[in-house]
């Protein structure tokens, strides 16, 4: 099994981190750059910024965050939210992001995946998929933050994204997101086993053992979580120690 990555996700609104982060070591808990630096130091393998800004100048604000982050953070980071064109992708990549994540825009226009992959390379194209259980081991893709059902089967879309040139899949379980009940390992393993590109599991982490489940039972290549890290309940180091104890190969803390 390849080495698993542990990825904190930061939700950013108008250039500020949302979801009540409060570490004693941070001067400004709402500053995405400072938080990203903190996670780099804490042993995170990668970071994801999810831009949830609704205003029309969202792209410019996010590009500034990316530019400032790239000067201080030296682990890979992905920017998602509102990327609808090659121009949007170019702005983020030229500002210093390593990858862009596309979700609803890719469903609306699958060619966007191949267009971005063609211009910038597959390694920087993450296709984010929000999926919800639709029946016995069957999952449906949702868009627009989980509000719109598409009728598309998750594995079918993930395979299509792979053949269009996606470098990896960020797979969120709508059923588990926010529940703290753990990753949906049935969904994760279904998609991870069907693909030849890496799958990042997302949605539902509440305790350390959930990370182990995501890797061992979910066959995830990477494990993403937000609130458990931000609230300081679980450290990246503790996650890695537990993964290693459970026989999951990861870059140990301090390496």
């Amino acid at each position, binding site marked *: 099994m390849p080495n698993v990555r542990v990825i904190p996700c930061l939700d950013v609104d108008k250039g500020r981190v949302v979801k009540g982060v409060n570490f004693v070591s941070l001067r400004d808990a709402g500053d995405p750059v400072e938080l990203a630096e903190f996670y780099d130091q804490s042993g995170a393998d990668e970071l994801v910024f999810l831009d949830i800004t609704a205003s029309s100048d969202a792209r410019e604000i996010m590009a500034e965050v990316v530019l400032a982050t790239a*000067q201080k953070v030296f682990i890979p980071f992905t920017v998602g939210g509102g990327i609808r064109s090659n121009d949007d992708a170019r702005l983020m990549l030229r500002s210093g992001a390593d990858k862009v994540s596309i979700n609803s825009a890719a469903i609306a226009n699958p060619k966007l995946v191949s267009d971005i992959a063609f211009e910038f390379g597959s*390694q920087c194209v993450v296709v984010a998929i929000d999926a919800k259980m639709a029946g016995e081991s069957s999952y449906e893709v949702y868009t627009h933050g989980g509000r719109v059902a598409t009728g598309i089967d998750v594995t079918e879309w993930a395979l299509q994204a792979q053949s269009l040139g996606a470098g990896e899949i960020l797979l969120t379980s709508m059923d588990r997101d926010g529940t703290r009940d753990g990753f949906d390992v049935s969904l994760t393993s279904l998609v991870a086993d069907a693909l*030849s590109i890496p799958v990042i599991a997302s949605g539902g982490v509440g305790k350390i053992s959930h990370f182990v489940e995501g890797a061992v039972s979910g066959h995830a290549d990477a494990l993403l979580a937000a609130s458990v890290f931000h609230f300081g309940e679980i450290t990246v180091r503790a996650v890695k120690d537990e993964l290693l104890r459970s026989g999951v190969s990861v870059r140990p803390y301090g390496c």
Partner: protein
Amino acid sequence: MIVVTDYGIGNLGSAQKALVRIGADAELVDQPVDLSGVTGIIMPGVGSFGACVTALHSSGLGSMVMKAVDLEIPLLGICVGMQLLYKGSEESPEVPGLGLIDGWVRRLEGAPKVPNMAWNQVEYVNKGEKSFLFESLPNDPWFYFVHSYAPDITDDTVAKCNYGSGFSAAVSSKNIFGTQFHPEKSSGTGLKLLSNFFEYCERKASV
């Protein structure tokens, strides 16, 4: 000054930002520059081998790199930038590489997932002593990789990695160096490697 070649594909600015972070005077250049004040060159690369070769040459940066090699200015290729140093790649067999290092670049074989998008440990291949690139780093250090192709292990390999099968993770031949991993994305370990390269360039320029 270290120049970082920017031939317009992807995020090539990270290496320059990392160099600035370690205190180096580093500039991103998208066209050939006068080499008189240049102490070292970093050639990053992402995307396909063929697209990188084409962009490198059409920007004129390819000939600048070749000229720098003639002048014995240290050169560090990163990721596809390392692959460009070789004779060619299975990814784009019709497009020759720079041919500065003997050997070929091949698709990763035997791995469950390609691309290899993960932190992996590398093992030093010492020729008498370990490469200066890894000075002050522990044995078997961890670096971040994103690639589907990799160079063969050859006599010039100074660190190897295993992902499905073995490949060359770092290479050194005269003043030409390469890393298949991304030091600029490998946190403190990667910054140390870049710092070692920068110091080598400084020492070389002052001789």
